[in-house]
């Protein structure tokens, strides 16, 4: 693997058009070596199409895709999928039903690769299942075989298409850990497509948020959560609630009192206050107008002193979860954005 090149994968102004529809519309992305990047977006945002263009299954109508510095896709160039050194893990795994676990993993390897296959089977904790056929495996096992199969030829970049969407909730958490562990054990540069924020946060070093065929934010999970670059991206890091405010000198005046700003801003603005950032503490007195119990947390609708309705999430074990009047404050530094419209 070429470790000297800092950018195993770059996309510049990539466009994929289906007739008049621009599924990917000028997407930019630069992935560093060994990094795990999540492409996060809703259905139709173009994330899967971008992934398939990187893999070599869709043609780019504009822009450039480079892998390890080599141009693989542009309107005038298209290296076939099998010569790109890009692995792809399919949503439905796409295991070859006529081949055993061992044969599936060995598929992309030349002869005499038994040691590598064995090593991968150990990494994936699939010992004893090598001779089974895909339909004899559980969903999680199939997922791991698909991942190991793609890792086997040591591609420069591994792409994963919605890797956890076919798994139920319990298995999903375990598989996130497994996949992350296996990718890091192999020091693999990976891009995974997901519509699930929690998946992206848990596994990715950086998250690229896609909307309408464009990458609208490319940041670490922490930044996406605490200080998203723009209004539109804020919703992808968590539940977004904006309060009208007036900023001045590093603080802002909001319906919940004075808050610290995470970025510098002056004048009228909107600040992002996620419901869980509001804490019961001496500050502004509020009244609870509605309450919903959700297990570990409860969700309250507060009326600020000026009457503004505000959502708040609170641990159900906190005494305030069941009170109608208490005081709240926002301790978190919040990001400010220009007012809407």
């Amino acid at each position: 693997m070429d470790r000297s090149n800092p950018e195993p994968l770059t996309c510049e102004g990539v466009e994929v058009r289906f007739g008049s529809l621009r599924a990917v519309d000028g997407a930019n992305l630069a992935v560093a070596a060994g990094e795990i990047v999540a492409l996060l977006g809703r259905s139709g945002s173009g994330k899967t199409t971008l992934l398939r263009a990187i893999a070599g299954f869709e043609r780019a109508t504009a822009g450039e895709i480079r892998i390890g510095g080599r141009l693989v896709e542009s309107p005038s160039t298209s290296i076939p999928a099998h010569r790109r050194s890009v692995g792809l893990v399919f949503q439905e795994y796409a295991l070859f039903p006529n081949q055993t676990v061992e044969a599936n993993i060995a598929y992309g390897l030349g002869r005499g690769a038994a040691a590598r296959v064995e090593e991968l089977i150990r990494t994936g904790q699939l010992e004893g299942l090598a001779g089974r056929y895909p339909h004899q495996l559980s969903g999680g096992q199939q997922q791991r075989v698909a991942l190991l199969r793609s890792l086997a030829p040591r591609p420069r970049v591994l792409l994963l298409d919605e890797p956890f969407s076919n798994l139920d909730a319990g298995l999903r958490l375990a598989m996130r850990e497994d996949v992350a562990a296996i990718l890091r054990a192999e020091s693999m540069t990976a891009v995974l497509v997901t519509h699930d924020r929690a998946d992206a946060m848990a596994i990715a070093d950086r998250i690229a948020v896609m909307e309408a065929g464009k990458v609208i934010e490319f940041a670490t999970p922490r930044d996406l959560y605490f200080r998203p670059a723009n209004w539109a991206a804020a919703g992808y890091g968590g539940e977004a609630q904006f309060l009208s405010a007036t900023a001045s000198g590093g603080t802002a005046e909001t319906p919940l009192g004075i808050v610290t700003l995470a970025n510098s801003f002056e004048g009228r603005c909107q600040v992002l206050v996620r419901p869980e950032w509001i804490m019961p503490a001496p500050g502004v007195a509020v009244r609870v107008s509605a309450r919903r119990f959700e297990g570990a947390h409860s969700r309250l609708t507060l009326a600020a002193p000026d009457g503004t309705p505000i959502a708040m999430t609170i641990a159900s074990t906190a005494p305030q979860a069941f009170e109608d009047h208490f005081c709240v404050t926002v301790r978190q530094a919040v990001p400010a954005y220009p007012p809407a419209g």
Partner: protein
Amino acid sequence: MVARVFRPRSRTAPAAIWLPGLLVVAATFIPAWYLAKRSTERGWDPWARALENSAAPLMVRSLTLALVVACASVLVAVPAAWLTTRAALPGRRLWAVLMAAPLAIPSYIMAMTVVDFLGPRGTLQGWLEPLGVERLPEIYGFWGSAFTLTAASFPYVYLVLRAAFATADVSEEEASRSLGVGPLRTFFRVVVPGLVPAIAAGVLLVVLYTLSDFGAVSTLNYDTFTRSIFVEYQTSFDRTGAAVLGAMLAMVAAAILAAELTVRGRMGRRASRRQSLMRPVPLGRWKWPAAGFLALIALLSLGLPLGVLGYWLLKGIQADANFPEIGLAARHSVAMAAGGAILTVLLALPVAILAARYTSPFGTVMEQAAYLTHALPGVVVALALVFFGISYARDLYQTTWMLLLAYVILFLPNALSALRASLLRQPRRLEDAGASLGRSPLRVLASVTIPLARPGMASAGLLVFLTVMKELPATLLLSPPGYETLPGLVWSRSTDALYAGAALPALVLVGLAAIPVALLSWRGDLGSLES
């Protein structure tokens, strides 16, 4: 998920696929090329003459017959397919095989036995004589031909429909039922609309079959367009005139294919999401009428021909008739059928891959060209190959290889539909996975696509085996001198009015042809016929 719906494949197929594909399709153009050449060698006069000589009314007669046979086939096949896939009917599997079994009986044998049994003063009339029945209504002509061709070709629709019933998404029906719609209304509002593409595919096969049929209409004395082609050869020894009529038939067939393509395009292809696990529908007091319906169909399409053949054989044995030696002919027929099946499937494979995997107008054209041959009478295709063989492949001419080439050209569509269906059932992402693992498209084909298509290849092979077994006109004209086959024996004995002598090879032929039918119904994937 727009990207998943239209996914244009701009990538081109590897040369190792499109080159043989192109060659095979070029071979299927031999009949069309021959017709174009022959029909225009004397200018447009023969065309004008053909039109004067009532070519148009004859075409109307042919199309009317084809339409009636297609409708009758659908009317028989829909209940038969539903009863044998969805209903709680005793002996369902046996019925399923019986409904497919008439495929083993060539139309000329069907027609011979129909005339013998249902003729105005045939065997049935003899049975009814004590009841005062002097003669039965005329079997010759339109209705007799329609009856015979329906009996011989409804299994094509039945099989396609069976596959459609077996793979249809039951959740749609369940949804309809859960919304308070009764089973009968669900059937007509949800199930039947879903069957339209399958019915269209089956009807196409029946229409082409009827248009090209000569054996049944000549025995039953009904003038059709195809029969007029034979009359042209027979009475005027006029190749040009016959070629003109053949070219006209090909044009009509092309129009029908274009229409079918439009219907298919509008309907789209319904991919099945899960296998039918629905509880069989209890029939209640309809159980016996349903069984009676199936029994009647089996009796007419299977019992009648086999009974008559058996009766002839018995009479022949009693009369110590001169039976032909059939060992060698049977071996020849089996060898040709097996060889034709292997060769056709191997050659159909690249075309099927192109059609199923590389969406381009080229692939569609290739496929439609292969179907065109289906509408042409065997003798036209055979003469085209005679001309081709004698002019360009002298070494192959009058060898069994030439005959095999004829079978490939005649039956490529049968193999193609079975193969394409099996390729379309394979998720394409398996091939994408192969490519993403660094394998070239050819190696992906060899290691993933083709191994997975093996059941489809087996079905296609069995299907071709079956049809080669029954084929008569090309076999007669193209086989090397002295090369006896079972259809040849049936033909020569029956033209010499030696019915006992014809019965033995006919029964052996039907018996051998029944083997692939049984295997296919047993495998349950006869439906891969679906085009």
